[in-house]
Every structure is written in structure tokens, then in C-alpha cells.
């Protein structure tokens, strides 16, 4: 709250207002390339010089039953010997991954995953560029000078009172019509977020630098394929390309099912970029998505020879037969569950992931990218077999909304919680299963901390987004606040 106030004494940075929308794309410099090269080199170094990839491949944090590379290789072995890989309970992954890895020689496997990482980083960069161009076009209504009657004294702290009065004032004055050449950039009441802004290149580099991304890449988590599909789907939506966006989403959904939730934000993005109604987009995109997904499943059927793969892949994701401890919330709950209630709570847990799609899409209609970030975060927390690969993607998407940072209140708690869980998680897992000096509750408690830290983070982001929107949408109040603070 103090931040907007400061603006009155410190006029906006002149350089900030000089940036014009078309030139917002940063000029390609050598630095991002160098960064990328260094980070790729770091990955190769870790792969070839250390045992870390082998250790990570067996860690529950990095590879789950539905994304483990080890299981993929088992499936590949069965596939090569003409045995259905879905017999037994080893291979839960999509059939089309098999022919891909069938033709790639083993020494290239690490390179494939590094290339995937770079591709993800590249498309994140492109999305971030779109995001910053959106930011420059963001409309900040001119403060209307409305003499608000509440500005004296203690009413300030109670947001509701201020808001009610302001709403009344706004009602009288709508719509906001501003005469003359109002430049929102020069508006002294507009909060300055230049100090926390991250450039698109920084976001891409941060993704490559993200330890979770490095872990997922080194562990060769096949979740990366799905993540790339999701990120590419968003990317094509930002460019207004409907068919490729749907194809990529279909691939992502085909691989790990949960990217289905991204249909909503991608439809919103497409309606923004194509300047048509959401309904219009939906009527064309849903059939197209269905056709693509059906095609993928059809090809899989031809490859696998039966529909058995459906129950082994989506069945495994939805019905959670493998309760190997992981960083998610399912395993402990369903180990402890009364058998009688298992089906019911499976439904509850799975519906819980999808419950948020409509409310979030409606609430943040004008920020489709934010919707996508939130939904990916929710999926990463509440899906049946989460891993750090999911975390690495959604954190990068959140980094694009760097204008929210100054509104966030719980970042310390959220980030510390995640660090705390990241350090103690493997420790407690070891104590429980290897050292035998801890029990399952140790590890379960830390997965709860992990989930709670992430929930705090996204709740905080939601709050920050609403708070900022409030600032933007109620210019009268913005002025009032500035005035009040400095009286």
C-alpha cells in the first residue's frame, strides 16, 4: 500500500515511458545464448561426469510411475520383444512414446531431454514476449476526480468501507470518459513495477536454471513431453493459431491427461488474439481437439493392438493403483482409506483438480495467461502422480507475472516452505525407507508442507492479481489512497 504512495514523490522513470509497444521485443543479444549454452553444458556435465542422473532417476520426487524413464525402458524392452508392455503393472505411459524411443539410440537419450528442456525454455520465452506486449497495452483508466467522502481518518484501513463509497462514486460517474491525451504511463498514481519486472530472456534463463527443471531433465522424466505440449499449446494460442494450439494440447493431454484443463485458458487466449467471442472459439476448438486426441488414440490402438493401453495409462492416472510414495497427496490418503470409501474419494480428488477451471477462467477472464498458470499450478499440486517437473513449468509461468510481485504478501512463507520441503523431503524419505529411523508420517508431513507452500504461493498470486486489478479498475480509489496516505 505504501508503494503507490511513494510514486507521488518520485515521478516515474522517464526511460520507462520511452518504451513503445512495437520495440518491446528485446533485441537478441549474445547474453541469452551464452546463458543457454552454459546451462546446457551444466546439464551435460552433470550427466557425463557424475552419478546424479542415475540417482535422480530413482527418486520419487523426479520420476513417478507414470513418468519414470526406467519404466519406459522396461516397456520398450517388452515392446521390442513383441510382448504387450501393458501386461503387468510396469508401464503406465502412452504407447506412442515407445516407437519414438525405439528409433533413438540410447546415447542420444540425454540429449533428447536436454533438447526438450531448451524447447520448453524457447516457448516460454515466446510466451513471455507476448505477455510483456500485453502489459504495455494494458489500459489504466485515468483517475476521475471524485471527491470521495470517506477519505478522512480511520475509515482507510477498512477496505470495504472505502470500496463501498468508491463504488457508489463510480456508479455516478460511469462510464469513465477521459478527455484529451491521457497517457497512462505518466499517471503518477500508477504503481511502478519496473524494479521487479523480469525480461522474457530472464524468464527463459530462470527456467533453465531452475533446479526442479534440471532435476526433471536429468531424471529423464517423460513429463517433459507433456509439458512441452502444454507450453507449445499456450504459445500457439498467443499467436492466434488455433489448429496447432489444439494439436499441441491434444498431444499433452494424450500423454498425461491433466493438460485437458488448459483448454479453457487457451480458448480465452485465442479469443483475445483472434478478437472473437469465446463461444466462437469453443465451437471450433473443441471438435478439433477431439479429432486430434481421437487420432492419437487411434494411432495408439493400431500400435498397441488393443484398447488395453487406455486402462493402463489413463486408468493408472485416474484410479491410482500404484501407491508408491511420491510428493503428491494421493498415496498416503489412499493407503489409509477405508476400502469402502476409496471409489468415492477417488472421484472427489479427481474432481477437485477440475473444479477450479470454470471459476478461475471466469474470475480472471482478462488474464488468460494467469489462468493458465493457476490451472497448471493446481494440476501440479493435486494431480495423482506429481513430480518436480510439473512444478518447474508453472513456476516459470508465474514468473511472467512479475508485475504482481509487489502485491504479494506471502512470498517469504511460500518460497521458504518449498525450500524447506525440498531439503527435508528427500531426507525424511531416506529416514523412513532406508535408515528405518523415521516412519511414513515424516515423509507425508513434508509432502503436505510442499503442497501447502505451493497453495500459499498461488493464493498469494490470486490475491495480488485481484489487488492490482482493483488498483487499475478503480482509479478514483487509487487517487484517494494516494491522497490519504500522504495527508
Amino acid at each position: 500500500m505504501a508503494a503507490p504512495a511513494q510514486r507521488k514523490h518520485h515521478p516515474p522513470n522517464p526511460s520507462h515511458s520511452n518504451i513503445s509497444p512495437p520495440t518491446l521485443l528485446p533485441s537478441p543479444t549474445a547474453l541469452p545464448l551464452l546463458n543457454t549454452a552454459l546451462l546446457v553444458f551444466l546439464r551435460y556435465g552433470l550427466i557425463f561426469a557424475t552419478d546424479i542422473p542415475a540417482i535422480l532417476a530413482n527418486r520419487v520426487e523426479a520420476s513417478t510411475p507414470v513418468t519414470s524413464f526406467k519404466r519406459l525402458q522396461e516397456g520398450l524392452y517388452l515392446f521390442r520383444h513383441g510382448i504387450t508392455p501393458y501386461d503387468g503393472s510396469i508401464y503406465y505411459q502412452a504407447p506412442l512414446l515407445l516407437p519414438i524411443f525405439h528409433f533413438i539410440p540410447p546415447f542420444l537419450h540425454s540429449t533428447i531431454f536436454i533438447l526438450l528442456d531448451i524447447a520448453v525454455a524457447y516457448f516460454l520465452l515466446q510466451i513471455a514476449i507476448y505477455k510483456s506486449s500485453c502489459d504495455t497495452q494494458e489500459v489504466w483508466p485515468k483517475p476521475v476526480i471524485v471527491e470521495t467522502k470517506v477519505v478522512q481518518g480511520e475509515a482507510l484501513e477498512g477496505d470495504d468501507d472505502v470500496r463501498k463509497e468508491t463504488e457508489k462514486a463510480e456508479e455516478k460517474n460511469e462510464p469513465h470518459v477521459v478527455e484529451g491525451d491521457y497517457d497512462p504511463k505518466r499517471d503518477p498514481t500508477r504503481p511502478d513495477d519496473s524494479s521487479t519486472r523480469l525480461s522474457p530472456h530472464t524468464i527463459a534463463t530462470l527456467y533453465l536454471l531452475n533446479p526442479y527443471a534440471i532435476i526433471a531433465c536429468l531424471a529423464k522424466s517423460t513429463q517433459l513431453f507433456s509439458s512441452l505440449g502444454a507450453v507449445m499449446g499456450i504459445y500457439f494460442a498467443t499467436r492466434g493459431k488455433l489448429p496447432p494450439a489444439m494439436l499441441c494440447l491434444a498431444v499433452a493431454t494424450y500423454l498425461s491427461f491433466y493438460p485437458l484443463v488448459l483448454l479453457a485458458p487457451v480458448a480465452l487466449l485465442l479469443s483475445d488474439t483472434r478478437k472473437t467471442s469465446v463461444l466462437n472459439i469453443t465451437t471450433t476448438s473443441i471438435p478439433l481437439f477431439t479429432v486430434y486426441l481421437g487420432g492419437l488414440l487411434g494411432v495408439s490402438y493400431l500400435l498397441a493392438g488393443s484398447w488395453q493401453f487406455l486402462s493402463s495409462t489413463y486408468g493408472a492416472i485416474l484410479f491410482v493403483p500404484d501407491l508408491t510414495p511420491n510428493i503428491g497427496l494421493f498415496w498416503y490418503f489412499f493407503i489409509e482409506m477405508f476400502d469402502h470409501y476409496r471409489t468415492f474419494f477417488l472421484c472427489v480428488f479427481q474432481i477437485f483438480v477440475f473444479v477450479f477451471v470454470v471459476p478461475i477462467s471466469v474470475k480472471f477472464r482478462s488474464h488468460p495467461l494467469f489462468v493458465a498458470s493457476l490451472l497448471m499450478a493446481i494440476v501440479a499440486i493435486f494431480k495423482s502422480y506429481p513430480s518436480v517437473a510439473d512444478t518447474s513449468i508453472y513456476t516459470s509461468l508465474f514468473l511472467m507475472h512479475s508485475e504482481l510481485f509487489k502485491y504479494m504478501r506471502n512470498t517469504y512463507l511460500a518460497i521458504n516452505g518449498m525450500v524447506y520441503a525440498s531439503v527435508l523431503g528427500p531426507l525424511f524419505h531416506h529416514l523412513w525407507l532406508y535408515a528405518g529411523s523415521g516412519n511414513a508420517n515424516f515423509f507425508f508431513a513434508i509432502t503436505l508442507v510442499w503442497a501447502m507452500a505451493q497453495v500459499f504461493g498461488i493464493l498469494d498470486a490470486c490475491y495480488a492479481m485481484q489487488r492490482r486489478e482493483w488498483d487499475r479498475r478503480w482509479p478514483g480509489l487509487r487517487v484517494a489512497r494516494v491522497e490519504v496516505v500522504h495527508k
Partner: protein
Amino acid sequence: MGIQLERPDLENTAFTRRLILLSVLGVFLLGLPIWWKTTEIHRAPLPFDEIRRWAGPGVLDAKVFVNIDLRVDSSDSEALPPNSPSLAATIEERVNSIYGSVSGSDLGRPTQAANQPSEAASIALAFRIQDHIADGGSGTKKDEEPGNYEVHVTCKAPESGEDVVSVSASRIVDITTTCASDQLPNRIAVVIAGLFADEQKKYLASSSKEDNAHDHDNMRMVKYAPEYQVTFSLLNGDPTDANVSWDIQNGIDYFILPFLNTISKLSNFSVSSQIQHYAALPIEPEVYPSSFCLRPHMLPHFINSAEWNLASTVAKGTPLNFVLYIPPKSQTPLVLLRSDGQPHPTNAFLIPRWGGIVVRDPPTSDRLSLDDLHPIMEIFLAQLRGLLGVKETRISNAGVLLEGTSITYESERNIGVTAWEHDRLIRERTVQNLVDAVTTLNSLGKLIEAGENMIVLDEIRTKVLTSLTSIHHCHKALQNSSNPTLAYSHSRTAILNAESAFFDPTMVSMLYFPDEHKYAIYMPLFVPVCVPVLATVLKEIKGWRSKRKEKGKKKAE
């Protein structure tokens, strides 16, 4: 020029709020049928009335029929009493009157039952004795069937020595007595009644529940199972003293298998053997003059269940263990003492419902040959008989009732079980299974009626119905047929189905599930989810009401 700035179209309006609320409520509505469907308690209808009917007084009453052919070989037919054609009928009447039941077809309750609690079923032996004088000895084939016996009466001159009763290993009793005496029917009746007296006592005990606990034989006997896993273990205290091995393969083949084959109609047996070294006793033997001893009070702790790995991991049958324990040299000779302080003659003991143990000092040679094993295997066989409930056939009260008669019992040396014993075992098991099946079904019925949250799957229903049908058939077979094997196979189906329904894991999972548990299951997740939703709903309703009021006011104005 005027620029129309972007206005919030959806966001922050009441419409948005309602849309979000509706979407969440929509999911709740969608979830309701799922909740209903997935948590419904499936209760297959069970025939409770029929189950209870079997436990009703007198319903299970049955007579187990024993057929006896009476053959009187008489050197001089004049010696027979004048009413000899009805000799069989006379004996039948006497025996049945001793056993408290009247003639075969009459369903009158035995007199003993009058003293018993009314809910206890009474099962009693009944005899059909036929005269086979006319056949001239052609009925030999009949005694091959279980449940059919022959009594051969050989007449002798009154002065030629004492009476002789000889019970053969097959189903024949030879009685040599003075035929001319009036006492002839009485004598034969006493022999027949005496042979089955123990068995009758047992039925009375098994049908009246209170006495069961004090029956030592019953406590010793293992619970009935369709399959037993018989394990012979050689436990060697210290292999550095003597690295003992045994010729158990032949030992089992010669001594145990014939017995098991004979009674394989009752249950399946699988036999295994093992040798374990460094088997330490969990108890310290007392020092006895010049040896070590174990007193009776120490024997319950003899089994080192922590270290001796006696149970086979693969077996699914009920385990029966037979242990030959060879103590280390430092504890030899090891003697088992009786309660009176004297050394036990066989140096072996039986653990009820578990198995038998034989203690032997280390042998001189490292390998126990078949000959060395012979006495040990005989003890094991006797213990096995005890565990399975095989009773020796004896005429009870013979000393009083048959004074001055020499009685010989033939034993089956090769098989280890005589036809008498075998028949008795089958009959006893049949009755026991029948009573147990009815009891189990009743407990199950009571349990299901008491626990309203209990799931009753369709397969439980099928099992209960099968069990009931088998009880019915078994009961009928007992009443009508003299063939005990048929009744036995029905009783076996009945008890197996009843027990597997009773011990079905799906029943146990919800055995104790009070309503408070439901709060514990639903509250943690649904209360936090529902509170904000309900709060918003209430707020919306309030807002809508106040708006209506305002409108009403405006109209009024």
C-alpha cells in the same frame, strides 16, 4: 476526443460472483449422485429366518444310524432261545433304550435331552439291527461300507471256558458266548452299546454347549480344516556335537502315509519335513540327578517361537507340527518328568491343537535310520491320531457289565487306524461340522443384523445359501441314510461355506463402523470446502433480499 476505456465486463460484478458460485454448486450437484452411488452399502438379502430356524429347538435333532447285521452261528440250533427269529429286534430295542431313543423311524426325543437346555440340538446314535441268520453268511460284503457292522455270535457250551469278545480291525465283532442263556440278547446289547458309548457321550457334549470347554479330547483336537499341513522337523541343538540327519522320507512313507491315505476322505494332508540346526530351547532345563529334566509346568514354553521357523510359508492348510528335538550335549540326557516326578516313558508330549514333540538324546551315529525312527514315528502317529480326534474303540464299562469275559481288540498295525475308529471319526466330524455350520451361520446372521453398516456382497449370500442347502442335505442324509460319507461330504460343504462367509475380509472391513467415523471421514475435506461456498450462498441470498426490500420501498414511494 473521447476514448472509451475498457470497462470491467465480467469481473468484479455480481454476475461473475454468481456464475462462479453456480459452477461450484453445479459440481456439488454432479457429485451428489456419485456420492450416493459409491458409498452405498450393498446388502444382499440373506434368509435370516431359515438360518434362525436351524438354531431353533429340536430342528437339528438327528439320529445317526448304525446298521448292524447280527449273525448267529450255532452249532446246535436248539441251543438258541425259542424266540430267536426276533433276537435282532430284541437287541435293537434294548440298545436303543439304553441310548435313550426308541425305534428308528420314531422321531421322539431322547430322554437325555430332557435335562438339556431347550435351544441345544440333540443328536444321538440310533441302531438298526437286522437278523442275518437267513442269509447263511452271505452278508460279508456289507461290512466294507462305513456305518455297517457285523456281530458274529458263536455259540459255545456253557462249560467251555469264559466268554470271548473280539473286536476286529474291520467292522466285525465276534462274540463267543453261551447261546442258550436268557442273557444272550442282553449280553450282545451290552457289547454293542459299550462300543458306541463314548461316541454317544461326545454327541451329547457337542450339542450342549456348556460341557465343551471341559472336554479334554476336544481341547486337544485341531479345528476342522479341509487341508492340513503336516510338518516333521528335526531340531538339532548343536550340530557340532552331532550333525544329525534322518531318513524321514522312508519314515513318513512307512508310518504316516498309510494313515493319512485312509483318512484322506476327511481332509487333504500335505506332508513336509525339515532339519534345523542350532535350535536353542527358550527354557533352561533343571538339573536332575545325573541328567537334565523338564517339568510339566515348563513344557508350555518349550517351543521357541521366536527362533524356530516351523511354519511353512507356502502352505495354506492348517499346520500340524511334529518336532524331534535333540538337545545339545551340554544338556543331555534330557528327561521329561511327569507331574509325579517320574521320568516320562516316551519322553514325548503333545501340544493341544499344535502338534507333538519327541525329545531324544543325540544318537550315536549321525543318521537316524528307519529302525531308529520307528519308535519315534509311532509316537508321532499316536500324537497325530490324538490331534485329529481318532479315538480307540473300547467297550466302556466292560469290567462291570461283561465280568468274566475276555475282550481282545485288534489294532491296525500298518495303517494306524481301524475301520471302527475311521467310521467314528467320520460320524463325529459330520455331527461337529453340522453343529458348527449352524452356529457359524447364526453368528453371521446376528452380526449382519446388528451391524447396519456392514456390506453383504452377493458372494456372501451365495455362500450362505450353499451352506444352508448343505446343512439341509446333511441333516436329511443323517436321518435317512446309513451311508455316513454322503452326510459327511455335505457337512463339509456346509462348514466350509459358512466359515468362508463368516471370515470374508469384506465383512470384517466394516465390522465396526459407527456413525462418528463418518464425520471423521467427511469433515476434514468437506468442511473447509463447504464453509466459503455456503457463506457466499448466504451472502447472495441476503443481498437479493435487501434488493427486493429496496425495490418494494421504491414502489411504495
